[in-house]
């Protein structure tokens, strides 16, 4: 009884600690008084009307970049993970470590390195990838692919290989076996990797700051620069809109797939 009481209090404290800032942002976005006054003086929705079109454009860029990153991370990450987990070749473990290493490098360092790489590419091949959406997606693949590789490696470790043999035995070609058996069984791992890649791409500032330039400004970079030079209630409105969309997205995912299954909490 005492234990369960202590547990509840601790749990409540953790939730308050995690959620309080978010709730303050939401409340502030409806505050009619001067920015940063708390508690709010009176209710208003005018900050939402004042959101500049540049934020909407930046949202589109962010969504395109995040979707592209998620899809391409799956396209490259799944075969890479399957090769790493099933292949028998020299240097497999080293290659695995290299595949996961971008997750351990600070994003700022990756950003600077990629920034430099864009100049080298321009000098050598007149390829303009800096400041473009494809360039930004390529940059985000540096962490998107490792996320997918990691979740698929974990999923494949539990995969029973006799199941694929059963498919081949029943007459499925290796390709049919992959699409009808392997991919559906690994689907939760693939989807959770893709969601990680999507969310991290949406969240990224340091790399987008270097790679986005003036033409491919993502929402976080837009917010970041606005906070620096032109802080107002509209930023709060943008922030609270993002929170709203995230909550709806999470609820939808939970309904459709189940978050527990998706993130390996239950099996």
């Amino acid at each position, binding site marked *: 009884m005492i234990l369960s009481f202590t547990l509840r209090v601790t749990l409540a404290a953790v939730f308050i600690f995690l959620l309080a800032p978010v709730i303050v942002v939401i409340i502030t976005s409806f505050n009619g008084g001067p920015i940063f006054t708390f508690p709010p003086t009176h209710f208003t929705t005018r900050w939402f009307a004042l959101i500049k079109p540049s934020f909407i454009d930046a949202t589109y860029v962010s969504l395109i970049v995040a979707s592209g990153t998620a899809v391409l991370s799956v396209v490259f990450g799944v075969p890479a993970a399957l090769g790493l987990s099933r292949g028998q070749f020299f240097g497999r473990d080293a290659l695995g470590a290299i595949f996961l290493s971008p997750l351990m490098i600070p994003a700022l360092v990756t950003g600077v390195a990629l920034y430099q790489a864009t100049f080298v590419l321009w000098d050598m091949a007149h390829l303009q990838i800096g400041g473009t959406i494809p360039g930004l997606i390529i940059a985000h693949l540096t962490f998107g692919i490792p996320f997918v590789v990691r979740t698929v490696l974990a999923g494949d470790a539990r995969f*029973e290989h*006799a199941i694929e043999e*059963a*498919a081949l*035995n*029943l*007459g499925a*070609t290796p390709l049919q076996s992959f699409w009808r058996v392997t991919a559906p*069984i690994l689907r939760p791992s693939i989807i959770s990797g893709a969601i990680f890649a999507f969310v991290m791409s949406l969240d990224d500032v340091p790399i987008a700051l270097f790679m986005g330039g003036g033409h491919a400004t993502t929402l976080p970079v837009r917010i970041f620069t606005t906070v620096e030079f032109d802080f107002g209630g509209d930023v709060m409105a943008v922030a609270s809109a993002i929170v709203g969309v995230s909550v709806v997205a999470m609820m939808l995912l939970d309904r459709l797939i189940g978050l527990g299954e998706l993130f390996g909490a239950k099996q």
Partner: protein
Amino acid sequence: MSEVIFENVEKSYADQLVVRGVNMTIRQGEFLTLLGPSGCGKTTCLRMIAGFVTPSQGRIIMAGRDITNLPPYRRNTGMVFQSYALFPHKTVAENIAFGLEVRRIPRAERAAKVAEALRLVRLESFADRYPTQLSGGQRQRVALARAVVIKPDVLLLDEPLAALDLKLREELQIEIRRVQSSLDITTLFVTHDQSEALSMSDRVAVMQDGRIVQIDSPDIVYERPRTRYVANFVGRTNLIKIAVRARQNDTYRVETCSGPVKAFDVIANADSAMNIGDRCLLGTRPEHFHVGGGHTNSCEATVRAVTYFGSIRHVEAEGPAGEHFTIVARAGDPIPARGETIVVSWRPEACFLLPE
């Protein structure tokens, strides 16, 4: 015709030979069992028919076609795995339909065949369940239905009962045999369980170190084992060291080599080629040893232990030259006490000769 023929098949990994010169024919409609301890190459042989292992040498012919180098999906085999290997994301009916789908069987025909297969393994009411909702025995019956629904040239059973408990195992032995004979499918069964091999098979091939050492019907394998290895792997055998003294056709007169000299008569099978003077082993099954005299061959033994098994007792005894004897005593037989010296006797036709 869907015979499977092994022609001098060998398989080596790195420098280790796991299958050595195997020649055998699995006849049309036959239930053939590969029996042996783990690591004897029996599973490798089965996987070579399925196409998951390529022989290093030799040929495998199935239904008149050389399949040695065909990929698994171009052979028409149905395999049942020890771990069931059901598709976890598909229902029972979808699992069974899989092989028909990839063969592009039209939907209506597919549904009819799946229903028939479900009826065959008595799982009609489980069609829409997922594998995780089934018991081990039910899963293995789904696996069996999935393997036979495609009308394979050969049914391959890779220790399908090893993961089940005894009672279920016995039930499924009967089930598998019933399905196999009603469909008349050529079948290769792999097991390390000798009682399973004896009760289910038309013929048993006993394997040792990658070789088939004897391939015969179960009663011949048990009653006339060809080597000491077979005699000890399939059931128990009481062995006495002897030398051949006289021979007349199938009837041998033999004498013990060590301890006090005793003479025995043996009626061996015609092809056991022992000559006068040869040293060999006299083998007798525990159930053919009788406590007390009354049969042609007899010797003395000292009782070391008596173990009760319900319907029978095992009397463990030490022979005149220190041999270890096991004697089966049935209800009504005299039960000797520990330390007692008894006479053991047996009939000449109930024993066999083995090379040393």
